Structures are given as structure tokens and as C-alpha cells.
């Protein structure tokens, strides 16, 4: 069975909510919708306080190419447009809407019918995806249309669908493939058409045999779509790792998937694309997996964007006594919520609760140079060395050690027998080196422009 070549770990996958069918969450009385739920420039609000909006109506317009539209997830009145503190503790501009009824835009197809016929031209498809505010749903939230707009001179040969869901606990992609398998495959067909590729692979880890079977069965009636079972191994859902696992090609350091002819989209994103293209539905709701050992009923919900996180926890059996940490996403790469009065956003793939005991890090001791961090690093780096260099502030050496290649997957900390906070230091060092690189690039650009100006003057 296929997998990626370098490093990796086997965490306990803890898929507690794998058997729980996706339940529709009640529409909340109020939603908080941040205007920045994606990588790139924040969107600009196009509604004013007091305006009445419908479900699916554009409420904030993308500003630039790398940005995404935001649509209302409820119908009602715009109550406030103001800054509020987000899950990570930063102030973010957002639109607060008080719900009244559930009135959708007429243009959205709300029937259960599956629309199989793909009629749009590639350019139209990409434009529609851009209009509907689709972003990467695996958590990275990179605007989907940007990835689909292959730059001139590059060619996409392979479309890869990331259905790996390698984070422990999370099951939203798993349930999606079981309950909406055909829609997902139509989404894949749409993307193949948009990119002009004949071949697409859907990578699924072998801890989801039912999802593999379901998609394989359905894929028989689709041309060019191959379901690829992958050996359970974290971080297989990392874009570079997945491309390696499926095609055997490694994206070079500092390059993008398209440089090896690949475009990768998350399976959740593909479903959103299906709905956008075939049903004219913007990204206003998503599947969120609410899970964790202390939780009474680990569940998967279909949730309107902007729904408070607390409502989801309540729906999954309520906040348990024994909860020490609430993570946005899974336990390997997720970020803990600094507060719970925050909304579900486009990138909320899961909410994982940890018990008080599991929330503590164990005390760190001396590095024993066991090389386990080196062996598990999926990028082939030397985490022990990078953490020491970062700690000592030796940023030039850190750059030489290829710190910018680090994907922050957490395998090093996970495996360290001395419980050393290796990645904490590496992240800090990476931020410094990244800033250095940006400053150099800016200086380089300025110098080039100055030289050009001088040359023009000389003429």
C-alpha cells in the first residue's frame, strides 16, 4: 500500500465520532461572521447595519485575487459590523447578524436532487468557485480559485483529492465520503474539467475502509477517477507528503505542487465546489466534527458559518467537567481556542476537547540525542538541531538548516522521549528567518527598481 517516503508517525487515531451520522445543527439566533476567514486579504463588508439579508447573500466582497467572498449564512438583520476577538485571541472585523426565519436566495438550488451534468466551461467554473467564496476546507483556508488558476508556463497533469484526514479524532471528511460520496465525485469531475486533466486520484487512509469501498464503488461510473488507499501514517494529509505518496514525486524545497504538475484539493472543498457549481450555493455551512475523550457524544454536525462554538459543544452532550483544552482542529496541528464565545468559520474542521490530564505537557528533560526526531521528520530535517539554533538565536545557521521547509506537523514533539518543546523553538526561529527573507526580498526589489530608475535617467 502506498505512503510517503520520509519520516512520519503512528498516533492513536481515536476516531470516536466515525459512526455518528452528520446532523443538521439548528440555525442560531445570531451569527458572527468574520470578514477574514481565509489566507489573503480580508474581504470588505458590502452591507450596512440595519440591512436585511437572505441566506447566501454576499455580505463582504473579496479584495484582490488572493481573498475570498463572504456570504450570509442566515437570513435576518445586520446588527453590528465591528471588531471582536477571534479564537486565537486576535481582534477581527466581522458582521453580526440577528436571525429572522430562514429565507434563502431564490437562485440557490435547495433540493436534495443530485445534479450530475456538468455544463459549465472551465473559466466559468473557476469564476463561480471564486464568487461562491470557496476556500480550502481542511483548515488551511487558501482560496480555492487561486490553486485552480494554473499560472502561465505551468501545466497541471494530476488532480489529487486529499481525503486522508490524518489528524487523530477528526471524522468530518470520513462522514462526508460515506453520506455524500457521489456529490464528491461529481465535484472531482468538475475540477478535472476546470483543470483540463484526464486523471484524478482520491487518497484515503486505510483506517476508513468503508469510505474507500463506497468511493471505489461509485467511482466505477466515473472516468479517470482512481481511489487510492493509503497506509495509515501521519502527516499523510500534508500536501507535499500526499503528492509523494500518490505520484512518487517530491515537490522541491520552496516550490509549489504545480511545479510537479499537481493540484491538491481537500475532499471537503470538493464537496463545497460541487454545491457552488451545480447548486449555485455559496460557502455558508460546513461539516464540523466535535470530538474528544471527555465529551459525552462525539458528533459530526452540518453547521452554519458564524454559529457559536459553545452551541456545538452543547449539542454534543455539553461541556464536560473534565475538560482542560478545546482545540480548533485536531490534536496534532490544531490551535487551542483562547475563548469559546467565538464562531465556527470556513476553516473549522473540528473541535477537539482534551481531558485536564491530557492537556498538560510533561516536563522536559535534557536531549539524549536519540535521533528519534530526525527519524520521524517528514521533511528530512534535523529538529533537535534547529530547536537549539533557534534557542541560541543563530538565525543564519537556522536558515542553512532549511528551517523554512518545516511544515510544523509536530512529529518531533510527539516522539521526543525527553518531552522537549522542539517545535515551539523551531516556530519562533522560523518566524525570524521568514522575516529576514522577506526583508531581503524587499531590499532586493528596491535595489533593482533604483537601478532601473537610474538607467532610465541616464537615457
Amino acid at each position: 500500500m502506498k505512503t510517503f517516503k520520509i519520516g512520519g508517525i503512528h498516533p492513536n487515531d481515536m476516531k470516536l465520532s466515525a459512526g455518528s451520522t452528520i446532523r443538521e445543527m439548528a440555525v442560531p439566533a445570531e451569527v458572527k461572521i468574520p470578514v477574514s476567514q481565509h489566507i489573503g486579504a480580508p474581504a470588505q463588508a458590502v452591507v450596512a447595519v440595519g440591512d436585511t439579508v437572505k441566506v447566501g447573500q454576499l455580505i463582504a466582497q473579496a479584495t484582490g485575487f488572493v481573498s475570498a467572498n463572504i456570504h450570509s449564512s442566515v437570513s435576518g438583520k445586520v446588527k453590528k459590523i465591528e471588531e471582536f476577538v477571534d479564537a486565537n485571541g486576535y481582534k477581527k472585523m466581522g458582521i453580526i447578524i440577528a436571525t429572522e426565519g430562514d429565507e434563502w436566495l431564490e437562485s440557490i438550488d435547495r433540493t436534495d436532487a443530485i445534479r450530475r451534468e456538468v455544463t459549465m466551461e472551465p473559466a466559468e467554473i473557476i469564476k463561480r468557485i471564486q464568487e461562491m467564496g470557496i476556500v480550502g476546507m481542511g483548515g488551511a483556508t487558501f482560496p480555492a480559485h487561486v490553486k485552480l488558476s494554473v499560472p502561465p508556463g505551468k501545466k497541471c497533469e494530476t488532480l489529487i483529492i486529499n481525503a486522508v484526514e490524518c489528524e487523530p479524532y477528526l471524522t468530518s471528511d470520513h462522514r462526508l465520503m460515506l453520506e455524500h460520496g457521489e456529490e464528491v465525485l461529481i465535484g472531482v469531475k468538475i475540477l478535472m474539467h476546470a483543470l483540463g486533466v484526464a486523471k484524478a486520484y482520491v487518497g484515503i487512509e486505510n483506517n476508513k475502509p468503508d469510505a474507500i469501498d463506497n468511493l471505489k464503488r461509485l467511482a466505477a461510473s466515473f472516468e479517470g477517477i482512481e481511489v487510492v488507499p493509503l497506509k495509515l501514517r501521519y502527516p499523510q494529509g500534508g500536501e507535499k507528503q500526499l503528492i509523494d505518496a500518490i505520484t512518487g514525486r517530491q515537490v522541491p524545497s520552496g516550490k509549489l505542487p504545480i511545479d510537479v504538475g499537481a493540484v491538491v484539493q481537500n475532499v471537503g472543498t470538493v464537496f463545497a465546489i460541487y454545491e457552488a457549481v451545480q447548486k449555485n450555493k455559496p460557502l455558508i455551512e460546513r461539516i464540523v466534527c466535535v470530538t474528544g475523550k471527555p465529551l459525552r457524544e462525539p458528533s459530526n454536525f452540518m453547521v452554519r458559518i458564524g454559529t457559536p462554538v459553545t452551541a456545538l459543544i452543547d449539542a454534543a452532550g455539553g461541556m464536560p467537567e473534565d475538560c482542560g483544552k478545546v482545540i480548533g482542529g485536531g490534536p496534532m496541528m490544531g490551535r487551542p481556542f483562547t475563548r469559546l464565545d467565538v464562531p465556527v468559520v470556513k476553516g473549522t474542521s473540528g473541535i477537539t476537547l482534551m481531558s485536564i490530564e491530557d492537556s498538560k505537557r510533561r516536563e522536559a528533560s535534557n536531549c539524549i540525542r536519540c535521533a528519534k526526531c530526525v527519524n520521524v521528520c517528514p521533511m528530512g530535517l534535523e529538529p533537535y538541531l534547529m530547536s537549539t539554533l533557534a534557542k541560541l538565536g543563530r538565525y543564519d545557521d537556522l536558515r542553512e538548516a532549511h528551517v523554512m521547509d518545516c511544515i510544523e506537523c509536530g512529529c518531533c514533539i510527539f516522539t521526543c522521549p525527553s518531552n522537549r518543546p522542539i517545535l515551539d523553538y523551531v516556530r519562533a526561529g522560523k518566524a525570524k528567518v521568514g522575516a529576514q527573507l522577506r526583508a531581503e526580498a524587499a531590499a532586493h526589489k528596491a535595489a533593482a527598481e533604483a537601478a532601473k530608475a537610474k538607467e532610465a535617467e541616464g537615457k
Partner: protein
Amino acid sequence: MNKLTIAPSPHVHSGDSVRRNMFGVAIALVPALATSLWFFGLDALAVILTSVVACVAVEYLIQKFVLKVPTTISDGSAIVTGLILAFNLPPALPLWIVVVGAVFAIGVCKMTFGGLGQNIVNPAIGGRVFLLMSFPAQMTTWTVPGVDATTGATPLGLMKEGLKSGKSVSEIIGLPETSDLFFGGIGGSLGEVSALAILIGLAFLLIARIITWHIPVAVLGSMAALQGVFYVASPESFASPLFTLLTGGAMLGAVFMATDYVTSPMSGKGMVIYGCGIGVLTVLIRDFGAYPEGMSFAILLMNLVTPLINRFCKPKRFGEIAK
């Protein structure tokens, strides 16, 4: 509601610990321990207990009274050092000398550099080499196991003496059978009497993922290869590769001493170079040096080269373009 913890990811851990690895090594040493007790009896027990207790005590006392830091003896590393030091000593060694070895191993080789993880050379080997230099007579008085335990030379010692006095390999009398070398019952340090016992330990270390194959394979492979060349060239003046692998500290060194985390390289490639260095040096010392055995010296020398190896042997990076 409880206060929520905020910490950067990851939020789960494998559960591995320094203690798990150290006690894993201790468990892997059990077969060798059992064979040494079987062949050498209470003498062996006395040396092992003295060594372990002395190593742990020295670490505790230094941390408590000299460094005034929390003690780390519960991590098990001093126990492992004590066991390995004992396995490198002759069974009849006076116990006070064992204590001196422990003081040098832990006190000088480990604690002066900052304790676990910071030392430059393997403490147990440092201790052994210190004793070999300081007490050459006591350190080379070997008990040959048997009903009436007698003293005598080790197989390597016999080979060296024989070859030095101008005999050819086939003329040297008293060399043990290969089966004895494998199953045990030869003269030597506590831990070197049975290759089989060490190999069982190796299997455990590999299965428990405490070490990787690189170092043991590189050490033993390079020893066999180089000795093989010499042997083929002149079978009457060199021991066979099999004899080389089964005698002295070859097995113990390759499996338990060269693989010490702290003093061996970090990358697979580096480990292979380091292992081959040990194998080649050992063979050269054994065949051409003054000592019959060279494993300890070879490991010690390669320990010193480890930082250099780490500098030049980097793991293969993802997406690395060949230059």
C-alpha cells in the same frame, strides 16, 4: 467551568520517555546478565551490583551536593552505565576498583559535561579504559568459567600471544570452539561470554524500536569485511572473521556501547560511517596494535568524531535536488 489551557500544537504525545528507553536497554541486557551469572556465579553478581550501585550513587551525590540540582537518577541512565561498565570488567576484579571505575565513568565522563545527553564519550567505556590504564594487571586477570574456575587468557589474548611469539594460527593451542564462543563459556569480561545472549538483546532493542539497525550492522559488517580480507590474504597469521566477531567485546560493543544515543551520530548515514570507523579501528588495533582487544578504544575514538560526522552527514531532505 475550568480554565482552558493554551499551548502550541501538538497536543498529544507518543508516551515515550527517557526512562522507557533506558529500562528497555536494561531489559535487553538481561540475557547477557543471566549468562554471566551462570558462568561466573557470585563473583559476577558482586561486580554488577557494585558497579550499578556505585554509578547511581555517584550521580545522586554529585547532583545533590556538588551541583545542587534536582536528581535525575530515576531516568535509569546511571543504571545502564553501571550495567555496561560491569559487563566490561573481569569477574574477579577487586570491588574497590569497580567503584573507582564508576566514579570516573559518572563523575568525570558524564557529570562534568552536564549530565545525561551532554557527555562527549560513552561513560561506561571511559570508565573501563581508565581502569585498563590504571590497573592493567587486575584488568587482565581473566577467570575461565568451569567447575573449578581457573584464571587464564581470553581467546583474543591467546591469539595475540601466539602470533607474537611467531606461531601460526593453527599452531596456537587452547583456542575455544566456535560453538563455545557463540553460546558462552569462554574467558573474558562479564558481558562478552556469549554472543547469543547479546544477539537476543539486539533483537529486543530493534523490536522495541530503541535503536535502529545501522550501527550494529555497520560495526560487525566492517569488522568481518576487513578481517576477511586479511584472513584470505594470509590465513595462518590472521584470525578468521567469525573468530573476530565472536570474541572480545565485538558483540557487546556493537550492540550496547556503540549504540549509546548521546555519543553516536544522529543520521542513518552518519551512523553507518561511525559504525564502520569503529569496526575498522577495532580490527587494526587487534591485528596490529599492542592490545589484544580494541573495541573500547575504537568506540572512544569514534565518539570524539561524532560531532564532526553530525556536521557533515545530514539526513536526506524532502524534495532535495541532487547537486
